[in-house]
Structures are given as structure tokens and as C-alpha cells.
């Protein structure tokens, strides 16, 4: 079945899942940046505190909308059989299980943050805040998911977008760590170390990983879906 469909060309769903994923990444990046601006209590006459705070909350909800669209379109896209379960339970899928699974992990973390935020009136502040820290874990996982699962990571626009988002979050995270937590030096050191480690990982992994040769095969794309599986010459070279 998949061999025949592969000759038809990428479906609309495939384009949609790419684009909604990219927009979701952008919105999540914006959420984090706004979150740091919020907690640093920056404001101006045209940008009062309550506006920054509302923006932070609303952008995160918008990100959720695009995330859900991203998941639904990837499920509906029949090229790689991704089920709805794969979106929530990590590493059980057949298509690039590890890199896709990271997306599920990130989504689970984001769900936890969003649900606790929607229900924050019913839980203690300390609990809500503790869960909220998970955003700093979910974001890098989402980025690596995007770079590893995406079939066009080498596309310039996507690469540029990813790098810009990473730079923004890195700047936001460093600002957050340097100007906060004055009591706990160890924690600040660990946070900065984590940010540095992630950056280093990206720098080392990108060239040899997603941007390297035969990433599709190495990342766990089912053999039947790989381009060279069709020796008949029918064009299916859109997927790498």
C-alpha cells in the first residue's frame, strides 16, 4: 500500500504537519521568552505587566492549538503509519521511533504544564510552580524531535528557524539564570551547564546526524518507506 501511495506525491497532510510543527516551535519559543520577560517583571507604559502575562498565557494556548493540529495531521498523513497513541506514548511507533517518541515526551510535558496552569486555582502555588519548570525540559526535547523526525531538516528555512529559536531560548534561559535564584549558586551553575551542554550537543550532532548522509535510514524510517527501496525508478525522491 505504502509503495503505491509514495508515488502519488506528498499529501497535504504532510505539508501541514511540517508547517504546524514549525509554527508550534516558534510559538513555544515565544512563550518561553515571554515567560522570562514576565518573571523578570519587565514592563513599559505600552506593555503593562498584565499584558505581558496575558500574552504569555495566550501564546501558550495558541501553541497548543498548533501542536494538536501537528499531531492530527501527522496521524492523518498515511505515508508513515503514525497512530494517535504514538503522539502520547513515547517510543512505541514504527516510524523513527526514538525521534518521534521525543515529540511524545515533549507533548506530555507540555500537557502537564498546561493542565496544571488551567487548574492552578485548585492546587497549591508551590505544586504549580514545580510543574511549570518542566517547560525548560520540554522545549529542548521538542527541538531535537523536530530536527530528528523532520524529513527536511536540511531545508534552509527550517534550519534557520530552528537556530533562531534556539538562540532566543538560550538568551532567555541565561537571562533567567543569571538574574535570579540568588540563593542557590549550585542550581544556577547546573542550569547554565545544562544550557551549555544542550548547545554543544546540537553543534556536534546536527552535522553528523540530521544533516549527514542517510539520516532517514539511520533515524529509523521503516525500510519500506526509504527512497532506495523502490528500484523501479518511480519518483519517490521527495522523502530523504
Amino acid at each position: 500500500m505504502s509503495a503505491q501511495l509514495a508515488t502519488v506525491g506528498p499529501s497535504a497532510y504532510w505539508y501541514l504537519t511540517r508547517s504546524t510543527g514549525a509554527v508550534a516551535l516558534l510559538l513555544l519559543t515565544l512563550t518561553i521568552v515571554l515567560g522570562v520577560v514576565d518573571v523578570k517583571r519587565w514592563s513599559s507604559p505600552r506593555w503593562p505587566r498584565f499584558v505581558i502575562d496575558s500574552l504569555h498565557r495566550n501564546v501558550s494556548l495558541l501553541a497548543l492549538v498548533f501542536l494538536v493540529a501537528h499531531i492530527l495531521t501527522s496521524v492523518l498523513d498515511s505515508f508513515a503509519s503514525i497512530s494517535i497513541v504514538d503522539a502520547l506514548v513515547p517510543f512505541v511507533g514504527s516510524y523513527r521511533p526514538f525521534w518521534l517518541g521525543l515529540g511524545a515526551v515533549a507533548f506530555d510535558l507540555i500537557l502537564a504544564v498546561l493542565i496544571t496552569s488551567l487548574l492552578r486555582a485548585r492546587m497549591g502555588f508551590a505544586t504549580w510552580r514545580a510543574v511549570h519548570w518542566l517547560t525548560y525540559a520540554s522545549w529542548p526535547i521538542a527541538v531535537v524531535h523536530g530536527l530528528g523526525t523532520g524529513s527536511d531538516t536540511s531545508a534552509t528555512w527550517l534550519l534557520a528557524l530552528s537556530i533562531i529559536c534556539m538562540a532566543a531560548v538560550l538568551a532567555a534561559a541565561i537571562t533567567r539564570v543569571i538574574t535570579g535564584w540568588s540563593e542557590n549558586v549550585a542550581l544556577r551553575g547546573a542550569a547554565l551547564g545544562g544550557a551549555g551542554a544542550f548547545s554543544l550537543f546540537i553543534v556536534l550532532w546536527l552535522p553528523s546526524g540530521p544533516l549527514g548522509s542517510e539520516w532517514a535510514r539511520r533515524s529509523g524510517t521503516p525500510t519500506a518507506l526509504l527512497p532506495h527501496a523502490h528500484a523501479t525508478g518511480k519518483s519517490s525522491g521527495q522523502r530523504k
Partner: protein
Amino acid sequence: MNHRARVNPIACEAHGMCAELLPERITLDEWGYPIIDGAPLENRQVEHAIRAARACPTFALLVERDRAPAPARARRGERRS
């Protein structure tokens, strides 16, 4: 039945959104903490006070109803039905 705005000084971390959303009744001191008098809110202010209470990141702002004889219970930004 009166509504009053009150701040939980322990929870308050001087984010300052309450003063932006209810400037008629809440001002900030020189350290950024809210000053609220204890007088009842005017009817048209109650809605804004509840919105301000919902906006507070630490739920420090409370909008309470006077309820004789038991002491008022605070609900975070919500009206009692």
C-alpha cells in the same frame, strides 16, 4: 453585601499586575507591594477586582465577601454564586 479586596502579604511577590488592573483602589509602594484600603469595593469595581485577582501570578490578591456572622472565606477571583 460588600466585597473587599485584600492581599495575602506572604504570597505576594510584587508582580504589580493588580495595581494595573484596579488602579482606582490599588497603588504600589516604593518597593512594588500593593497598598489597598479595607473599604468595600464599588459595584462596578468588583468585576475588575476579580479579574485582577485572576491575573495575580501567585494568587495573592483576594476578593472577599462580607458574610455575617461567619468570617469571610476568600475565593481566588471567583464570585460566590
